[in-house]
């Protein structure tokens, strides 16, 4: 009986996955009553689809039905026009983005995937906060320039659920520029619950760079000198490497002691400091990364900002936005993904922070939850969304759910996807609230503004 329920539920996901379907409802071939335009193509021998996840820092690319991406590619490209290397997400106009994407996709198709774009459908994993302009330009480049047969724009958070075979969960994606949480209930994304903070890898890098500049010692030919006296900044790649190889997320008890020690300016409160490490730089000098720096660099994730938001509060705030009966199931089905969630100690600390926050006044009496459970997708967290895309893309129904080139050419743009709104409406999760789509648009704008208003605007 239990088992049967699961089938029904997951079948329900699929049916409701028709939010993807509905989203593209202006597309003739997504109608259940017509011949799909691509029936010929979808018959049997179709070549596996290309799965693209264009991250702010790294893009993951590969093919449907594969269990891991074939390549992680830094999301930047050297433009042939200006000979400058630019980040894909670092564009100032649509024309510029168009040029960047033409060259970046060329790199992906002809250096990494080694297939002809024309021959394969595309599953494009995107953040739910992906700006409309970005999606439109991706469609324009892939359809008009590369003539791909179809694209499915699939929200990463939902794709993560596919890697687990579940349909209710609270998915947290901690990537490069932001951390975003989306509750999904019975296969339906609760747009109202979307939470985002611009705290993720970039913020850690910024903090680490500042700490090193402020405190680190450089050893050159046996002579010690403050880093700041020798170099005005370290390259971003070095900062990232130092983070990946030496930093970790400390446990909550130590974090509290460290906070006290800093607040009270009392060195003796600081717990026993981890070992320091000498990090070799180009040119033979060595940078001393102290145990303190290794331990506190990632603390920005859990420090509350001016609006009292942190990576941990996003989860509780998201749950708060959902109806009471959903809250326990959501809290019992946390899914963590994104490269930043791979930091050693991240998950453990996050759960401890959540538990502590539960006793705070703003959540205490309002949440009605007392424990959390965390899923482990069959992937490394930095490609969980991609893997979901791969599993979805391998299904024979991909053609029904995708936006075909013909439909795109007819409409001249990606048809309105207000249907996500419809999906929400339909399940009467948020009755009488027509504004969720507007909310989403507003959220997108907000997250854009925030990320551009941040201290250091873009990864360089």
């Amino acid at each position, binding site marked *: 009986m239990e088992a049967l329920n699961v089938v029904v539920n997951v079948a329900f996901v699929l049916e409701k996955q028709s939010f993807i379907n509905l989203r593209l*409802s202006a597309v003739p071939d997504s109608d259940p009553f017509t011949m799909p335009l691509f029936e010929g193509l979808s018959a049997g021998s179709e070549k596996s689809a290309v799965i693209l996840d264009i991250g702010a820092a790294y893009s993951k690319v590969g093919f449907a039905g594969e269990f891991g991406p074939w390549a992680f590619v830094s999301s930047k490209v050297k433009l042939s026009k200006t000979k400058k290397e630019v980040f894909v997400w670092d564009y100032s106009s649509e024309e510029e983005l168009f040029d960047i994407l033409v060259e970046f996709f060329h790199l992906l198709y002809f250096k990494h995937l080694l297939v002809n774009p024309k021959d394969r459908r595309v599953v494009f994993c995107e953040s739910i906060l992906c700006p409309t302009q970005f999606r439109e330009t991706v469609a324009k480049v892939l359809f008009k320039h590369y003539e791909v047969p179809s694209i499915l724009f699939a929200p990463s958070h939902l794709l993560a659920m596919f890697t*687990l075979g579940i349909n209710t969960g609270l998915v947290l994606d901690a990537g490069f520029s932001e951390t975003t949480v989306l509750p999904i209930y019975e296969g339906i994304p609760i747009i109202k619950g979307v939470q985002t903070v611009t705290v993720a890898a970039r913020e850690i890098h910024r903090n680490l760079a500042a700490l090193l500049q402020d405190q680190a010692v450089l050893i050159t030919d046996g002579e010690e000198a403050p880093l700041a006296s020798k170099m005005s900044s370290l390259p971003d790649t070095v900062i990232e490497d130092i983070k990946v190889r030496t930093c970790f997320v400390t446990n909550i008890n130590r974090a509290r002691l460290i906070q006290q020690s800093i607040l009270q300016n009392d060195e003796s409160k600081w717990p026993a400091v981890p*070992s320091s*490490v000498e990090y070799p730089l180009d040119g033979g000098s060595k940078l001393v990364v102290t145990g303190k720096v290794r331990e506190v660099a990632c603390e920005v994730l859990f420090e509350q900002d001016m609006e009292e938001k942190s990576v941990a509060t996003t989860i509780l705030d998201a749950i708060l936005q959902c109806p009471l009966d959903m809250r326990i199931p959501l809290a019992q089905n946390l899914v963590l993904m994104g490269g930043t969630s791979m930091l050693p100690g991240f998950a453990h600390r996050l759960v401890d922070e959540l538990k502590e926050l539960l006793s705070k006044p703003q959540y205490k009496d309002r949440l009605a939850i007392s424990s959390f459970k*965390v899923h482990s997708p069959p992937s490394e967290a930095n490609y969980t969304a991609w893997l979901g895309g791969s599993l979805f893309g391998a299904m*024979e129904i991909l053609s029904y759910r995708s936006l075909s080139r013909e439909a795109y050419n007819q409409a001249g743009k990606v048809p309105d996807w207000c249907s996500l709104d419809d999906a929400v409406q339909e399940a009467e999760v948020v009755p009488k609230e027509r504004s969720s789509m507007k909310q989403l648009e507003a959220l997108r704008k907000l997250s854009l503004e925030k990320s551009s208003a941040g201290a250091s605007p873009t990864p360089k």
Partner: protein
Amino acid sequence: MASLLQFEKVLMKCSCDIKSPIINLYFCKHCLKLRCGRCVSHEVDSYSCPNCLENMPSAEAKLKKNRCANCLDCPSCNHSLTTRATSVALTDSQSPDKKMTKKVYYLACGLCRWTSRDIGLGDKETASGGWEEHDNPHFERLNELLEFYHQLAIKEKNEREQKKFNKRRTYLRLQEKYFSPGGLATRRKASFLNALSSMAPKTDEPEITPVKLIEPKEEVDPLPSKYYTQPLVLEKVTTLAQRLNRPEFASSQVEGLYPRHKHLVIKRSQRCRECEHNLSKPEYNPSSIKFKIQLVALHHIPDVRIYLVPKLYQAKESIVTILLSNPSQEKMETELEAINEPPSTGLLTVPEGLLVLAAKDITAEFDEKTADTSEFKDNPEKKSSETSQGHIQFRSGHKLGVLFKVTPQTSDSDVVVCFKLKYKYHNTSPSLRTPVEDEEKPDAVWLEHEVEINLGATSP
């Protein structure tokens, strides 16, 4: 020599309006138009391994995930690994006195000195190795998921077919549905779909075996205490690039790094998007740098180069020598027309009338004197009464030095002049065009391209 340095200085406008140096342009003999890397369609032509230069058919390349079966890369630095032979002493258990040696093989990197022995891979008895391959650690689970979604997809597909059969609508009716504004229709459609699917007969459908649910965990692994207490040995920790090389096996310890098969490279062919003819097609042999087809513009249209630029002063007329050369083996009539509008920043006067370029005589390439240029009486210098100044500087074989009068209109940016290059193109292989065209047109046509020359900065 000069061409090496100045090819960015002379740009030609492609039929797609993008300006490129002539060396980057193709000339489609069928459409008689310029094409560039941006407006042709690129295709994968052949696959090969950059190390052993072995060709691979495309189906096999996909099967091997775009990697060479024979060559391996160093997991530490990505350099190609070499197989090293060595002898090991064997002791025979029966007769311990008898010394035996056996030849064994291991992998080594010539660059960073990594060896397969470092990670505890046993030596092999054959040179070709047969090094262990690894499956994704979640292989079984992922196959279960794939199978489960496959069944669901089949089910949905069948239901869809059934509905299509039962309820075929007229195109008009559908159109009205799709293009009617608002989501109402879609929503109704979707609920209709739900209703139908619950009633749909499910007699001969196979039961779907549900994928088993892996329970989320309440206990999350804490950060191992070694992070706080033990020294960090940086050399033992992998870099992010090393981890991302094999995303499915991302190991944070160097002991977990396994060699990777070498990534294949491709040769690309280029096709004209308008007429679908090949503009460039490389030879199949991976070590060949030749082409079966290569319609580069340089072979078909007159080349324009800067020959001599005197010091330029703002608002003062100067004479610039420009070299035109004829790529074809027939003489070529050309005509120039100045374009004195942006992006031009200098007032340009070009020679009027026909300029005839002598045929390119390949045999005379190294002996310019043999070229007979006496038939060209185009140098008005001799008729000084008509023009105050001649416009032909010199003639040498198929090259012609012409004089441009330039009056810079700027002092703070480079002087740019633009003109139309018109020339009579002789189609040397008329069979390429359709018979109809041949009847209407002779095998020579006037073509024109816009040229933009950057003459550099003005002197103060």
